[in-house]
């Protein structure tokens, strides 16, 4: 059910690439202020779902609403509410950290009189103030991720969407990125929608998760609810992990639909760049 406090509402969201149904009747509701994790393997449809929510892919009216705005009818209003960090390391290496953030301040219409201060604040929040005037090409993978976070935050979004934000990062950098996300969420109360392969991260940092497989949500709830649910079904004393829940939902066999060539190449390229 969609309410005033619903950040994202997908109703029967479907999207096909030719014959392939990437998202197949997705129903999803993300409440305002929560950190929601969309989990699943390559090809599960989570990136396509994110692209529909962010207006990158056109969907008919009535399928996706962001804070009440229909992405099919009111794209510009939706975009003004979004901060988006794609899977790839998307900072421009030919610009400094400050210039990267400044570009997003400009395209979100931050007035000139407050642009410099707002950009400086965004860089300060992600601990990049000291490196702000270095070219982004000299940053480490973790620093680039934090820079992208600053780019997304400079417009004060109500919904922060992160597509695989920690892919390819070492454990310390992963923790650093999550610390920043949690600090920002605590400070601003913004809603966070994140996709990830890492079940341990989702378990630790997400309020609720949706396990996606073959274009649909197969399980939905808090990580603890899902783990307890599986424990009750299976019996036994030990509480299963979220990965066990996922394996139970999706099966463990090889899946020919697990990600197209471009998905895998993009994932590997990102991992190579940060690793």
């Amino acid at each position, binding site marked *: 059910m969609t309410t005033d406090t619903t950040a994202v509402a997908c109703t029967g969201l479907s999207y096909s690439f030719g014959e392939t149904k990437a998202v197949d009747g997705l129903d999803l509701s993300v409440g305002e202020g929560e950190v929601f994790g969309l989990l699943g393997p390559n090809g599960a449809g989570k990136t396509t779902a994110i692209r529909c929510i962010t207006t990158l892919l056109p969907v008919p009216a009535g399928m996706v609403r962001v804070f009440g*705005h229909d992405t099919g*009818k*009111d794209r510009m209003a939706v975009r003004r509410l979004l901060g988006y960090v794609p899977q790839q390391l998307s900072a421009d290496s030919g610009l400094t950290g400050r210039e990267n953030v400044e570009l997003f301040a400009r395209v979100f219409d931050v007035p000139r009189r407050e642009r410099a201060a707002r950009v400086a604040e965004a860089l300060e929040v992600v601990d990049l103030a000291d490196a702000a005037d270095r*070219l982004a090409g000299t940053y480490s993978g973790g620093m680039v991720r934090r820079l992208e976070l600053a780019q997304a935050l400079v417009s004060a979004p109500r919904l922060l969407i992160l597509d695989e934000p920690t892919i390819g990062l070492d454990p310390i950098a992963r923790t650093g990125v999550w610390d920043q996300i949690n600090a920002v969420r605590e400070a601003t109360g913004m809603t966070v929608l994140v996709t990830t392969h890492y079940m341990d991260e989702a378990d630790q940092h997400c309020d609720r998760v949706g396990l996606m497989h073959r274009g649909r949500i197969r399980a939905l709830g808090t990580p603890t609810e899902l783990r307890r649910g599986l424990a009750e079904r299976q019996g036994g004393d030990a509480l299963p992990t979220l990965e066990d829940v996922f394996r139970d939902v999706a099966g463990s066999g090889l899946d020919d639909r697990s990600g197209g060539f471009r998905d895998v190449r993009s994932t590997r390229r990102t991992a190579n760049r940060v690793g």
Partner: protein
Amino acid sequence: MSEAPAAPRTVSAEPTGTSLLLTPPQPRSGWRLLPARVVAMCAVELQKLRHDRTELYTRAIQPALWLLIFGQTFTRIKAIPTGGIPYIDYLAPGIIAQSAMFIAIFYGIQIIWERDAGILNKLLVTPTPRSALITGKAFAAGVKSLIQAVVVIVIAAILGVSLTWNPLKLLGVGLAVVLASAFFSCLSMSIAGIVLSRDRLMGIGQAITMPLFFGSNALYPVAIMPGWLQVVSKINPLSYQVDALRGLLLGTPAHLGLDFGVLAVAAALGITAASSLLGRLAR
């Protein structure tokens, strides 16, 4: 339902130093949006050039060689009718147009690189209509080409080409370079939206660049071309750019009204085509 407010939300904790990041900026609307996006894209181009001027220097080599070798040799041969001016003078506007076109025609490769790097998707999720994004990029290509044109004009002046220094005429030169670069960059971005891969675009870019150059009046007058090439030259925006540059820089007879009209229409059509194909790159 689409009237749901985008008001600032309740803040659970407000640490010092993030006050501005709690308030969404006031959106620009109407006619003010397009110039703001164009300025944003041009600023990025200038910032990049400020950090790395290598491209500016390396791209100056080819036009310098054209003027130095081709221009000076053909000036001696006197084989091409130039209306009484030295061939190197006749050639200089053509080389300015050529070097600007070479920059713009590879903008499609840049947009595919931005697609692969995730930069394009991130920009497409901002409140920037696709037409404004393409217009911004087209004018950014114009700014880059303009800087290149200044370099070529300086080289031509050093080589003794007698050019005008009338500021109004130079402004006209700038406008012609920007409009033509906007068209060629949009042509390239449109092809990028069709072929979707860098390798294919590089092949096509190279395949169309030479016919555009040799099928124009950059090197020789249209009158000495065979009939079929004259038709190519008539539909080639580069010819109108060269005609305008020659008229403004050298004072030769030109059709400035027609030239600027064709360039403006070509740029507008290019922006329309590239904007409508941009969505294919986002998929």
